[in-house]
């Protein structure tokens, strides 16, 4: 991992973004909703990233937006991981009809164009960030489920699982204590990649007006706000666009880095 420069780069960027998001109230030069100039102004010393059409400071909004976007990403991924891991573990461990049932559910969920599903659910509920997190989580667990199932099918064949059964461990104990820790590598990879996906989905939803609601800022709805002013105030689009892109890219770098570290080619040391 340490030798992997792109992964380290991603890790540094993500670390920086998380710090900035947490420190937003301290370092943001303005309040995110404060109208600090008349209309959209170019980046200047007073407003490093310029101001938006309502005269709000883009830097401050980006910092607070980072809080929202990253929180949505993390929470959605945690929900997807919990669901996906549970479904995949049960399917892979028990096999047979249980496996068939769960994996067909996964197929059905996959077959659904999830963005439309999310839009439909969001239009029925009042769109707020909590719904966004839950809905993204509920529609993105299937990949994790498939992955964990595959790992469990493999690990299930190993003798130490048989040995655990032979000392009288219950199924739950075997699944959570003996098998899950051995599947953690691919799950961590899926988590980083899934977080990138969740942040993108959040941006897309907010862009369509179904996600984080104004005046709260997220990178997605900052992009939406910029649409009408693309020509006159391009910084309004470029800043949040760059932030989304660098976050997603960093997460992909980290995910790939971990995946490489875990690949058998580089894993012969130790076990």
């Amino acid at each position: 991992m340490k030798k992997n420069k792109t992964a380290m780069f991603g890790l540094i960027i993500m670390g920086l973004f998380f710090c900035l998001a947490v420190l937003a109230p301290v370092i943001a030069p303005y309040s995110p909703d404060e109208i600090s100039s008349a209309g959209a102004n170019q980046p200047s010393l007073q407003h490093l990233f310029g101001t938006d059409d309502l005269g709000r400071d883009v830097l401050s909004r980006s910092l607070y937006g980072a809080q929202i976007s990253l929180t949505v990403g993390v929470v959605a991924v945690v929900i997807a991981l919990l669901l996906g891991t549970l479904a995949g573990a049960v399917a892979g461990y028990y096999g047979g009809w249980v496996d068939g049932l769960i994996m067909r559910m996964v197929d059905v969920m996959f077959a659904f164009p999830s963005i439309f599903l999310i839009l439909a659910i969001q239009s029925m509920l009042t769109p707020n960030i909590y719904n966004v997190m839950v809905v993204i989580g509920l529609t993105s667990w299937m990949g994790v489920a498939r992955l964990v199932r595959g790992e469990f099918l493999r690990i299930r064949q190993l003798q130490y699982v048989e040995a655990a059964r032979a000392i009288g461990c219950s199924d739950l104990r075997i699944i959570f204590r003996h098998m899950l820790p051995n599947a953690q590598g691919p799950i961590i990879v899926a988590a980083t990649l899934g977080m990138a996906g969740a942040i993108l989905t959040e941006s897309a939803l907010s862009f369509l007006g179904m996600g984080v609601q104004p005046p709260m800022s997220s990178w997605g709805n900052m992009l939406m706000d910029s649409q009408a002013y693309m020509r006159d105030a391009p910084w309004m689009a470029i800043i949040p666009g760059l932030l989304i892109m660098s976050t997603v890219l960093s997460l992909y770098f980290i995910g790939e880095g971990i995946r490489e570290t875990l690949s058998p080619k580089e894993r012969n040391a130790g076990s």
Partner: protein
Amino acid sequence: MLEVKNLSVNYYVDEGTVNAVAGVSFELKEGEILGVLGESGSGKSTLGFALLRLIDQPGKIVGGEIILNGRDLLLLPENEMRRIRGAAIAMVFQDPFASLNPVLTIGEQIIESIILHQGVKRGEAREKAAEALRAVKIDPARIDDYPHQFSGGMRQRVVIAMALACRPEILIADEPTTALDVTIQAEILSLLRELKAQFNLSIIYITHNFGIIKELCDRVVVMHKGAIVEAGEPGAIFDHPRDPYTKKLVDCLRELR
């Protein structure tokens, strides 16, 4: 103490039904080492797993009785069977490199079995685990080490410690030395003999190696195609095999020498 009557295990595969164990009956007496001899595919390992009711899909125990101290194990509900596994009957597997969980320390794996079966506190379980390690001649100071920090022979000792931690009456050893060097193999065999004397253990030793059977076992059953074809005292069978299949096995061994 353990009596197996007419035990049958079938595997239902695409090509049809395979009688992996076909009506096997034998008896294991207290403090005895019983050898189960057979080539790969003779059903000897399946027999071992069946005794603990660890036969997975597509296999199934289709008939017979496994009577341990008067109770038929095949009639027990699964949760009671779990209490038998590891506590009354324990098992040691062929490959010591695969039968320990790489992410748990050896201590955690031994302690787990003790806590599961004896309901003691963690501290006490840890002491008992250290004691179990001492019994298999591994320095108890290494209780917090991970499996990959041990050699093959030592790992097999750890596996044996894990199996014996709850003082089972019966140990099923499924080719426990096949994956090891010959010198280490001899060490493990003498360790098993010692432990047997120390804990009044009965052992079912599954192997394809007549040499080990002759050296270790009080009695032997020879399995071929899922059935027992011959049973008796190893020396006698070695000198005068009656069954043609046993005769072939003995001839092979003679040729090697």
